[in-house]
C-alpha cells in the first residue's frame, strides 16, 4: 500500500495493464499501478528491482512501456489515452530513465560489496558457508554487522566510479566503411556520440537545436561528417554549413580564454610569440613571398592545424590552472602577490628534504625504577632462618671443609648409581614428560582444520549471543532467543557429528571440551535471564 509520505512524481491516467484500465503512478522510490476506481495498487515495483525498461517501436499501434525486473519478470503498461498516449508514454519513459540509474547502482553496489568481501577474506567465506549455507543463521543476520557502513553517505574508495575519459583518437577510430558505391558508411554508437558531444560542446548545442525538429539524427550526423568542421583542413569557406558557426564559436572562445589569461602568475600567455634573433634563427618575418595566394593557402592550412591543436589542449591548460589556485581566482589583481609567492615557494621547496619535525616528547619520569630489576620471584622468601641457625651452619661448614680431601673412589655407591640410571632410562621418573606429545602432532590436519572452522563459527554465534546482553529492548529479547536456538542447532548439526567422527577415529583426546564449555555457559546465562524475566513478569 502506498504510504502517505511517499512523494508522487507523475500520475498517468488511462494506462492499461493486463487488459484492465487504471492509473500509473511514479513515486520517489517505486512505480505502481492501480486499477480504475480502486484505491490500492495491484502492481508495485521498486526502482531498485527494475533492471531496464523497453518501449514499443514508433510505428506500432499500441503504445507500450515494459519493465523488466532483475528476477526476469516483466510488466507491460499500455497507454490508451487517445490524444496523449505517446506523450504520456514518453514522459513516463524519461522520468524512469532518470530515476532507474540512481537506484540501480545502489542495489548492485550492495551485492558487489558482499561478493567482494567474501572473495577477499577466505575466513569470512568459510564462516558464511558454515553458518548461512547450512542454515544455522539467516543471511540477513550474517550481514547485519558487516555491512554497517554500506549505507553511509560517503562510499568506499572502491566504489567511486570515475568518469571514463575519452580516447584521444576516438574520431579517427570511427573508420568509415565503403558501402560499395563511392560513399562512406560511418558506424556511430552511443559512446561515440557522447564523446563527440563532450569534445565539441558547440556540436552538442547544434544537435539540441536542430534535432529532431529540423533534421533527423541521421541527417545531422551525415552533415557533421561531411562538414569541413570535422575534416582536418577545416577551411571555413562554406557558410551554408551549420557547423561553420561552431568553428567561429570555437575561435571566439579560444580568444577570450587567452585574453582572460591564465591564473598562474608565472605564465604570461600574451607574450608568447615567435621571436627571432636574427635571420636564420627562428622565423623571419620579412621574407618576401612569391605569391600572396600561395602564402595564404599554406598559412591558413597551418593555422587551421594549429587552431585545432589549441582547441584540443586549451581545456586542459585552463582547467588545471583554476583548480590549483585554490579559490584565489576571484580578484586576481588583489591576490596576485600571495599566489605568486605560493607558486614560487612550491617551486623551490621539497617536502622530503626538509628537516624532520620533531614531535614534542614528554620525558619519562620513573619514580620506582627498581621495580624493573626485580625478577618474577615472589618478594617473600619461604625460608626464615634465625641468626643462630646461620652461625651454626657456617661453623659446621667451616669445620667440615677445613680438612677437605677429595675422596674420589667413594663418590658413588652402586645402588645409588643404578637407581639413578633407572630414573634416567626411558620410562623412568625423569623421562615421563617426553612421551606427552604435543597435541597438534597427534591429530590429523583435516581434523584440526575442521576444529578451526567450528571455533570460528561458534565464535561468531556466541558473539551475536553475548552482544544481546544486557537485554533491554524487545528486539534484543527476540534476538537472544533466536540466538539460543541457533546455538542449539549449531551444536546438533555441527558439533555432535564432529565429536562422533573423532571418537570413531579412536582419538581419545577431548578436542571439543572447550567448545562445549562455552556453549554451556551461554545456555546457563540464557536460563538465568529467562527465569529472571519470568519472575519479573509475575
Amino acid at each position, binding site marked *: 500500500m502506498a504510504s502517505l509520505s511517499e512523494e508522487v512524481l507523475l500520475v498517468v491516467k488511462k494506462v492499461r495493464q493486463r487488459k484492465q484500465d487504471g492509473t500509473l503512478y511514479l513515486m520517489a522510490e517505486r512505480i505502481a499501478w492501480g486499477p480504475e476506481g480502486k484505491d490500492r495498487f495491484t502492481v508495485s515495483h521498486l526502482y531498485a528491482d527494475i533492471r531496464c525498461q523497453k518501449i514499443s517501436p514508433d510505428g506500432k499501434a499500441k503504445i507500450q512501456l515494459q519493465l523488466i525486473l532483475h528476477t526476469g519478470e516483466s510488466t507491460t503498461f499500455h497507454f490508451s489515452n487517445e490524444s496523449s498516449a505517446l506523450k504520456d508514454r514518453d514522459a513516463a519513459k524519461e522520468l524512469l530513465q532518470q530515476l532507474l540509474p540512481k537506484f540501480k547502482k545502489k542495489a548492485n553496489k550492495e551485492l558487489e560489496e558482499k561478493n567482494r568481501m567474501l572473495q577477499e577474506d577466505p575466513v569470512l567465506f568459510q564462516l558464511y558457508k558454515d553458518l548461512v549455507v547450512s542454515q544455522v543463521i539467516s543471511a540477513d543476520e550474517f550481514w547485519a554487522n558487516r555491512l554497517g557502513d554500506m549505507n553511509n553517505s560517503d562510499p568506499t574508495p572502491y566504489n567511486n566510479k570515475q568518469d571514463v575519459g575519452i580516447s584521444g583518437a576516438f574520431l579517427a577510430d570511427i573508420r568509415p566503411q565503403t558501402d560499395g558505391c563511392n560513399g562512406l558508411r560511418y558506424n556511430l554508437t552511443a559512446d561515440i556520440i557522447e564523446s563527440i558531444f563532450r569534445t565539441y560542446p558547440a556540436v552538442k548545442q547544434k544537435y539540441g537545436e536542430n534535432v529532431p525538429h529540423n533534421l533527423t539524427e541521421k541527417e545531422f550526423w551525415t552533415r557533421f561528417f561531411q562538414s569541413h568542421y570535422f575534416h582536418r583542413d577545416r577551411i571555413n569557406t562554406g557558410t551554408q554549413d551549420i557547423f561553420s558557426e561552431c568553428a567561429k564559436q570555437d575561435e571566439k572562445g579560444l580568444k577570450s580564454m587567452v585574453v582572460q589569461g591564465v591564473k598562474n602568475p608565472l605564465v604570461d600567455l600574451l607574450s608568447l610569440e615567435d621571436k627571432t634573433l636574427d635571420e636564420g634563427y627562428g622565423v623571419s618575418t620579412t621574407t618576401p613571398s612569391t605569391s600572396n595566394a600561395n602564402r595564404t593557402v599554406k598559412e591558413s592550412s597551418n593555422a587551421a592545424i594549429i587552431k585545432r591543436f589549441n582547441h584540443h589542449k586549451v581545456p586542459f591548460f585552463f582547467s588545471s590552472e583554476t583548480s590549483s589556485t585554490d579559490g584565489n581566482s576571484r580578484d586576481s589583481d588583489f591576490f596576485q602577490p600571495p599566489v605568486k609567492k605560493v607558486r614560487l615557494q612550491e617551486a623551490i621547496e621539497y617536502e622530503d628534504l626538509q628537516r624532520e619535525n620533531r614531535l614534542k616528547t614528554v620525558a619519562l619520569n620513573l619514580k620506582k625504577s627498581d621495580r624493573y630489576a626485580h625478577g618474577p620471584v615472589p618478594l617473600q622468601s619461604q625460608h626464615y632462618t634465625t641468626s643462630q641457625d646461620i652461625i651454626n*651452619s657456617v661453623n659446621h661448614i667451616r669445620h667440615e671443609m677445613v680438612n677437605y680431601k677429595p675422596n674420589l673412589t667413594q663418590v658413588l655407591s652402586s645402588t645409588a648409581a643404578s637407581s639413578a640410571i633407572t630414573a634416567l632410562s626411558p620410562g623412568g621418573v625423569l623421562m615421563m614428560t617426553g612421551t606427552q606429545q604435543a597435541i597438534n602432532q597427534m591429530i590429523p590436519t583435516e581434523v584440526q582444520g575442521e576444529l578451526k572452522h567450528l571455533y570460528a563459527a561458534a565464535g561468531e554465534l556466541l558473539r551475536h549471543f553475548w552482544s544481546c546482553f544486557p537485554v533491554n529492548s524487545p528486539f534484543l529479547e527476540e534476538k537472544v532467543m533466536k540466538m539460543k536456538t541457533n546455538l542449539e542447532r549449531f551444536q546438533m548439526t555441527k558439533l555432535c557429528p564432529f565429536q562422533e567422527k573423532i571418537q570413531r577415529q579412536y582419538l581419545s583426546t577431548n578436542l571439543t571440551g572447550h567448545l562445549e564449555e562455552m556453549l554451556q555457559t551461554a545456555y546457563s546465562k540464557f536460563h538465568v535471564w529467562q527465569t529472571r524475566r519470568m519472575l519479573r513478569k509475575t
Partner: protein
Amino acid sequence: FSAEDEINLLVIVVDVNPIWWGQQAQREPELTLSKCLDAVMVLGNSHMAMTRTNKLAVIASHCQDSHFLYPNKNWRGGDNGGEDASSSGDGKYELLSVANNLIAEEIRNVMTKKVEGRQTFLLSSLIMLSNWHGVSYRYLLMLPFLFSVGQEIKSRILVVKAAEDCARQYMNFMNVIFAAQKQNILIDACVLDSDSGLLQQACDITGGLYLKIPQKIALAQYLLWVFLPDSEQRSQLVLPPPAHVDYRAACFCHRNLIEIGYVCSVCLSIFCNFSPICTTCETAFKIQLPQMVKPKKKKLKQST
C-alpha cells in the same frame, strides 16, 4: 680444521652457599659439600679425560662473590715438570691430579677464610644466591685471548645449584642469559633442592638442559650421564626432555605471577589490577568501564 683443534670448555659453577650446605649437612648427611665437590671433580676429570683438548674451569659461588677454584693463581699452566710433588701416586693422568689438588686447596681457603668479619652481614633472614653468573661469563669472554689464534672454543656452563634464587639479581642474570645465547654458550643446570625459575629460563633460552635430581646421593651419576656429553653428542642420546618453563611475568605491585594483566603504555610496568595512575611513572589513565545499570526502584523481588 679438524675436530682435534676444537677446544671444548666446560665451566662448572658450584653453589657453595655455606648456610644452605651447613643446614643440609644437618638435614641429610648423605650429601655434604665434600661429597658434592667430589662428584664435581669426577665430572671435571671425566671431561678432561675425554679429549686432550678439553678444558675445564671450576668456580665456587659463595654468598657475596665467586672464586675460581680451577684454574687459579697457583696454576702455572701446562708445564709442571717435577717441581710440584703433588701427584697422588696412583698413576693418575697428571693433569687430573693437579687439577684436583688445586681445587681442593682453593675450596679449603674459600670456605674457611671467608666467614670471619662477614658474620654480621650474614645475619639476615634472606638466603641469597651469590653472583656467580657475572664471574663465569666474564671468564668466558676472556678465553679467546688466552688461546692462540685459529682455535675455536666451544664453551658451556654447568651450574650446580643448591640454595634458592635471589630476586635482586634478576636483571644481571637475564643480561647474562641473552649474552650467552648470542655467543652460543649453553647453560645447563643441575638443581639439588628447589626449582629455580631463572635457571629454567636460562636453559630454555640457551638450549641447555635443566635437571632437578631426585636423589642427591647419586649426584655423580646424574652429572656423568646427563651433563658430560656436549651439545653435539646430546643429539644422539636419549636424555630427559626439556621441562615446561613458566614464563609468566610478575606484577609490580605484589610480585604475583600473572597470566593476564595491565601494562602501562608509558613505562611498561605490569600490574595485576587496574589503577587510574601508574605508580611507577605517574601517568593518569582513563578506562571505559561498562555502563552501570541504575537499579530500578521496584517492588522487592521475591527472594529465590
